[in-house]
Each structure stands twice: as structure tokens, then as C-alpha cells.
């Protein structure tokens, strides 16, 4: 007879009703995070009691959001132990980057957190610009804020949609993806690609927005809150949704800080940690918006925080559209920015400059920088070490999904197998970013 492990989080696990069928026990929210362990329910099959079973969830399971493999040790249907295995999608982005010039790495950053491609491109460019020591133009700053918030909306919409599917609701997924489609149409009009945008360059953007693009964005900002209200109406107060999410995977504020969580995961636990607020970049401190935080740190709180972030992104976008100044997008720095195409094809000096810049690449000074930004998943940082050549000696990504995923063994212990899916979905992982 194996001893039952004591579990230090409150469970919404099975009890038994009068007929002896498993029954959910609703969680009593404590707020302080101190909860007592519940008595184990009497076993339905006493002769099998204490026998644990190992199962693999993934790496090709549709609900693990990619190629994540969770080895679960089950006692009946309760998870006793969980070991996540990562690395199935390892592509070696960081190694490849050591053989590429700074601008050539930008298409690779599209592919790590592919729901947030503009965000990655811009975060990379921000890091490289600090290494080069250039100040971007005002128009570029606002354009980057617009791209960042659009990509945050994309990522959160995909999160809401796929989590709904994981938990069993299909319709909000379609509405969320319809709005995502509108954003992709906007991005397509801007840079010609929908998913792998490569929207930024070191010192500027790939292109200015075309004429009339802002009208499309304003139209989107009018229709999008309506969809948000619909999704909100469908699930926020829905008993099934609340029952499937409440009290699951609780992280106390202390736990969240100890595990290094960031993004909506940390904020749902009540830690008001947002790079936009704590380490402002791109003039985020001049925008008027709220950082939502949760109370209990369960899956339901993460959902509420992300829904509120969608609303706040709309607020930021409205302010950004208002303040978008005229002027150049790229910095006036011939070390970084290619000469205009019309000059490069007609003037000899510009052509020599063009060739020199493409063949040799811009060279940053010797040094190392780390620049964190708030990606939809959490604190995303790029770290560069430069020896003064056109290629980084080393560059590294701080992937928020990876750090957040490291808390999954803590979160799923003592929960039911079906709740593992909900908890795993609530982390909002993208395997491209975790394995890199």
C-alpha cells in the first residue's frame, strides 16, 4: 500500500455523492493562499489502491499546444507527479544567429513565438538598437506600439480560442479567429505577410504603413470590442466554464515569484509585474492603461486577466492611433539603414554604400545588452554579446513560455487528468519559443 502524498493546494477533485459517484467539490476561496489538504476520497477499487500508472501526454497530443510531452504519474485519475519534457522542436535559432548579421536574424525571430511575430521582431530590434546605441524616430516608436499591441491581441485571442476548445467550448474559438483574421489582413497590408511578418529592422521598420491603413485599424478597433463582449457574454459567467477553470493550478504570489513567472501568469497570482510598467520602453509610460491583476492565481483568474488585457490593448491602440506623428520611420543613420532604392539605383555613392552595408553588415560596438519587453506570454528578453563584428558572438532569448512551463509540475499535482489540460492551456505556451 503506497502512502498518499499530501498536497498543499486546495483541490477541486472528486468526492463522492450519495450514490457513490464522483462529484466535484467547489473550492472555497481563501485569498491568503493558505488552504488545508482534503481527505482522499474512498477508493472505488480497493484492490488497485496505491498502484500508480505512468502515462505520456504528448508529444503529439492536440491539447498540449505543440510538441510538449508530459509524463504523468497517476493514482486513479489524480496526478501525483508530472515531468515535462521539452526539446522536440529545437531548431537552434541561437546558434544559427551567430552566423547571421543582425538584420538577418529578424526573420528567425518570427518563428520562435509564432503567435507574436511582430512582437519578437520589435523586441529583437529594440535589443539590437540599444547595442548599436541609436534612438529610433517618434513615428517608429508609435508604429511599434501599434504592432506590439496588435500582436498581443492576436496571441490572447488564440489563447482564449484554443483554451475554449481544450475545455470543450467551440464557438468562441471561431469568433476569436475571425477577429484574428482581421488583424492578419491589416498586417498583410502593412508588410505583405500574415504570420511571419519580419516587420522591423534595426533602426526602423521594414516599411511605413500604406495610405489608408489607419482607417482599417480604426474600423477594427470599432468592431473588436463587440466580439470581446460576445466572448465575455458566452463564457465569463458560464457555469461550465467557471466550473472547469476555478480553483485549478493555483499559484500563490510567493510561488509565482519563486518560480520566476511573468506575464499573465504572475499577474493572475496578484503580482503586478509588467515590463511596460516596471521597465518602460517605447514610451509606454506615457500611455494611459491599466495592468490587471488577479486574486487567487487560478486558471479562471488567468482567463480574466487576459480578457482585461485585450480591453487595455484596445485602449492603448486608440491612443497610439491618435498620437501617430508624421515624419521619417527609419533613423537617419547611414551605418544602419540602407539608402533609398531610388538613390541606390542612380547614384554611385549610394550604390557603394548599399553594397557595403549589405555585404559587411552594420557593426555594433563591443559590449553586451539585455532588453526585456512584455510579450503576451510574459517577460521576453533578448541578450546580445558583441565583439564588434557584424554578427553577434552570442545571442539568447529569455523565453517566457519556458519559465512559465517550469511551474507545471507544481500546478498539476493533485488535480485530475482532465484538469491537466486546462492548467496546461492556461500557461499559454508556444513550443517554438520554448525549444527555440
Amino acid at each position, binding site marked *: 500500500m503506497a502512502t498518499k502524498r499530501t498536497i498543499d493546494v486546495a483541490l477541486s477533485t472528486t468526492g463522492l455523492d450519495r450514490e457513490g459517484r464522483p462529484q466535484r467539490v467547489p473550492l472555497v*476561496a481563501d485569498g491568503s493562499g493558505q488552504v488545508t489538504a482534503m481527505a482522499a476520497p474512498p477508493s472505488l477499487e480497493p484492490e488497485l489502491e496505491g498502484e500508480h500508472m505512468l502515462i505520456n501526454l504528448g508529444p503529439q497530443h492536440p491539447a498540449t499546444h505543440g510538441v510538449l510531452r508530459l509524463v504523468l504519474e497517476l493514482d486513479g485519475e489524480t496526478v501525483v507527479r508530472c515531468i515535462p519534457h521539452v526539446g522536440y522542436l529545437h531548431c537552434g535559432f541561437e546558434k544559427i544567429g551567430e552566423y*547571421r548579421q543582425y*538584420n*538577418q*536574424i529578424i*526573420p*528567425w525571430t518570427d518563428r520562435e513565438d509564432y503567435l507574436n511575430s511582430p512582437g519578437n521582431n520589435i523586441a529583437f530590434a529594440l535589443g539590437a538598437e540599444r547595442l548599436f546605441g541609436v534612438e529610433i524616430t517618434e513615428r517608429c516608436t508609435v508604429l511599434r506600439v501599434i504592432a506590439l499591441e496588435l500582436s498581443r491581441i492576436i496571441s490572447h485571442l488564440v489563447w482564449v480560442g484554443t483554451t475554449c476548445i481544450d475545455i470543450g467550448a467551440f*464557438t468562441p474559438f471561431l469568433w476569436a479567429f*475571425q477577429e484574428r*483574421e482581421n488583424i492578419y489582413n491589416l498586417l*498583410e*497590408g*502593412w*508588410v*505583405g*505577410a500574415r504570420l*511571419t511578418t519580419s516587420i522591423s529592422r534595426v533602426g526602423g521598420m*521594414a*516599411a511605413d*504603413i*500604406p495610405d489608408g491603413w489607419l482607417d482599417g485599424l480604426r474600423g477594427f478597433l470599432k468592431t473588436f470590442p463587440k466580439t470581446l463582449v460576445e466572448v465575455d*457574454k*458566452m463564457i*465569463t*459567467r*458560464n*457555469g*461550465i*466554464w*467557471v466550473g472547469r477553470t*476555478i480553483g485549478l493550478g493555483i499559484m500563490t504570489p510567493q510561488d509565482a515569484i519563486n518560480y520566476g513567472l511573468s506575464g499573465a501568469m504572475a499577474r493572475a497570482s496578484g503580482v*503586478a509585474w509588467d515590463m*511596460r*510598467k516596471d521597465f518602460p520602453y517605447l514610451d*509606454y*509610460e*506615457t*500611455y*494611459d*492603461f*491599466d*495592468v*490587471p*491583476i*488577479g*486574486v487567487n492565481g487560478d486558471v*479562471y*483568474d488567468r482567463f*480574466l*486577466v487576459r480578457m*482585461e488585457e485585450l480591453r487595455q490593448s484596445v485602449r492603448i491602440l486608440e491612443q497610439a492611433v491618435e498620437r501617430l506623428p508624421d515624419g521619417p520611420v527609419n533613423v537617419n543613420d547611414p551605418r544602419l539603414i*540602407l539608402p*533609398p*532604392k*531610388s538613390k*541606390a*539605383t542612380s547614384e554611385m555613392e549610394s550604390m557603394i554604400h*548599399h*553594397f557595403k552595408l*549589405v555585404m559587411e553588415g552594420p557593426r555594433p560596438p563591443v559590449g553586451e545588452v539585455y532588453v526585456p519587453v512584455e510579450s503576451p506570454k510574459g517577460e521576453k528578453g533578448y541578450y546580445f554579446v558583441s565583439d564588434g563584428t557584424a554578427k553577434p558572438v552570442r545571442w539568447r532569448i529569455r523565453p517566457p513560455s519556458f519559465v512559465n512551463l517550469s511551474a507545471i509540475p507544481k500546478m498539476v499535482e493533485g488535480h485530475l487528468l482532465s484538469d491537466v489540460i486546462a492548467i496546461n492551456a492556461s500557461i499559454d505556451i508556444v513550443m517554438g519559443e520554448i525549444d527555440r
Partner: protein
Amino acid sequence: MAINVKVVDRPIDETSYVRATLKGLGNTFKHMIDPHKVTTQYPEQRESISPRWRGTHRMLTTEDGKAKCVACGLCPTVCPANCIKLVPGEDEEGNRYPLVFEIDEFRCIFCGYCQEVCPEEAIHLGRHYENSEYSREGFVYDLERLMAQTHPVCEMWDPADPKGE
């Protein structure tokens, strides 16, 4: 500092099963009679693609039917995916031209850097997205194939459009 911290409202007391289900059904029916249809009946109907669309490559030609490419070697240098193969040649007048110019459309990631750096405006990405072949070899587009493409080209990095430059 205008960034405030806001504690999210947890409407647990207002949850329900029947009311939420009815609301959801109502929403679904509202969408059913909504005249704004979002489904595109591909391939009969097609969404229009933006003028900046980055798709299948195309090599532009001069008026006498030769490729504009002068084999300067910028596009294979800048290509982040190493998908361009270029072997330069020289004719008797000393003009450089590409002996071999191949783009592996499977390796290509359609970032558009080749078009961005091309000083002759020869290689372009195109507004085209439906490619199919019976073999992998068919996706290695040689110079003839690139020149034979007829679809419109991507308008980004076009000197005529200062915003995209």
C-alpha cells in the same frame, strides 16, 4: 504615471448554467441571421491579397527579354535561409549575367530581403500563393522559370512608393 494596477472582478456569484446556455444559443442564432458572412468559398471565391504580398518569386526582364540580374551577389549574401544559388558569368562585352540562378522555394522563407537589397530591381517577390508540383525538384525554380512567371510583383521596396522603401 498613468499606468494603474487594476484587480480583476471575479463574477463567480453571477455564474449560471441555464441562463448562460440560453445566452450562448441566442448569440449563435444572432450570428446565423447576421447578413455579414465571413466564410470564403475557396477556391470559387478568393480573398484579394494586398499589393505588398510576399509570395512566389519572379525575375523581371529587360525589353529584349533578358533577365535584369547582373549577378552582383547581394541576394545570396543577404538571404537568411541560404536558398539562392548564383553562378555569375561574363559575356564578351564584359557584362555580368547569371549563368545559374536558382531559388529553392521550399527553403525560402519569403522574408523579401532579396528584393530589398537588389540594386537592379530584378528579383521580386510576387503576389501569388498557390504552388504545387509533383516532385521536390520542381520547387527549385531556375532562371527561366523565374522569368516566365507573370503574376504581379510585391510593391514593397518599390522606388515608386516612398512609404514602402
